[in-house]
């Protein structure tokens, strides 16, 4: 026992071993998430090859401006998350709380903009189902594109909601002063999750909004 940090569970030699175990476990979870989203991407690639024109048509109906703004918002939230971890590591409680709040706000902004985009799709009858209306020869296959769009962005948004919940939990604990330079493992691990959700969007954005546009 080299140190006596109360948060270190008895099965670990020290805080470092606990930290490395926790981050490794988080990576193991993130690998399953890579497979989960990877299956959706693989399915999308197969269908875009079969219905190139219809997917391009569907992609042109997405709001590129809002999509780009959302990308910037999410990248910004990743920066504030990284700075929250950094503040925790430096023992800066106020900085940690400030950056956690900023990350939560940017995450909520992303979800709000996504909600506006979804609302537009409902108004334009671009949601797959009996209400779906699209002129032209590709209407049937374009519905497939929107099925992928709603499934992929919907699952991503669900991850964001869970992420905001985790950040709120971190914020309460940070306010209570639970995290110190010797122990900030939960902040780091939740940060890994948040950045992963950002990485998923980094691939979702060009796949849905850009690649499909020209195909």
């Amino acid at each position: 026992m080299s140190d006596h940090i109360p948060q270190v569970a008895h099965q670990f030699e020290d805080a470092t071993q606990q930290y490395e175990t926790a981050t490794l476990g988080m990576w193991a979870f993130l690998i399953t998430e890579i497979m989960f989203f990877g299956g959706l991407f693989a399915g999308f690639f197969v269908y875009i090859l079969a219905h190139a024109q219809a997917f391009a048509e569907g992609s042109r109906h997405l709001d590129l401006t809002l999509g780009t703004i959302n990308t910037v918002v999410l990248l910004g939230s990743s920066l504030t998350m990284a700075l929250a971890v950094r503040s925790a590591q430096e023992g800066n409680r106020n900085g940690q709380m400030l950056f956690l709040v900023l990350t939560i706000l940017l995450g909520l902004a992303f979800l709000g903009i996504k909600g506006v985009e979804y609302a537009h799709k409902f108004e334009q009858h671009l949601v797959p189902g009996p209400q779906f209306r699209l002129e032209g020869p590709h209407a049937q296959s374009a519905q497939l594109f929107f099925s992928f769009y709603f499934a992929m962005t919907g699952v991503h948004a669900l991850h964001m909601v869970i992420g905001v919940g985790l950040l709120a939990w971190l914020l309460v604990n940070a306010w209570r002063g639970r995290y110190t330079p010797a122990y900030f493992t939960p902040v780091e691990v939740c940060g890994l999750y948040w950045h992963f959700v950002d990485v998923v969007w980094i691939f979702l954005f060009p796949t849905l909004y850009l690649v499909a546009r020209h195909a």
Partner: protein
Amino acid sequence: MTHPTVPLRLYVGIFVGLILLTGLTVGIAFFDLGGGRLHAVNAIAAITIAITKALLVVLYFMHIRYSNRLTWVFAGAGVFWLLILIVLTLADYLSRGWLPLPRPWSS
């Protein structure tokens, strides 16, 4: 212990890089770079930029650059399995039609 504190400047630099790459990928989407019916060059450019952005996030924001070898192996395994999933699937679907269809056996 854990990873070293990453300089603030580096984090902000990574963020600026990510924003610039976002601008670049949106910008080139307005030009047809060629590559036939599927606009392959546009697709490859967009995917390349996305991989670059993802690498920046994973290496610096997710601290993989400062992590131990075992974490490298885990993250690498995830990417490797993803490549198996995507590459083997597309190797089938992209190559269909390259060879003439075999005729059915005649009795």
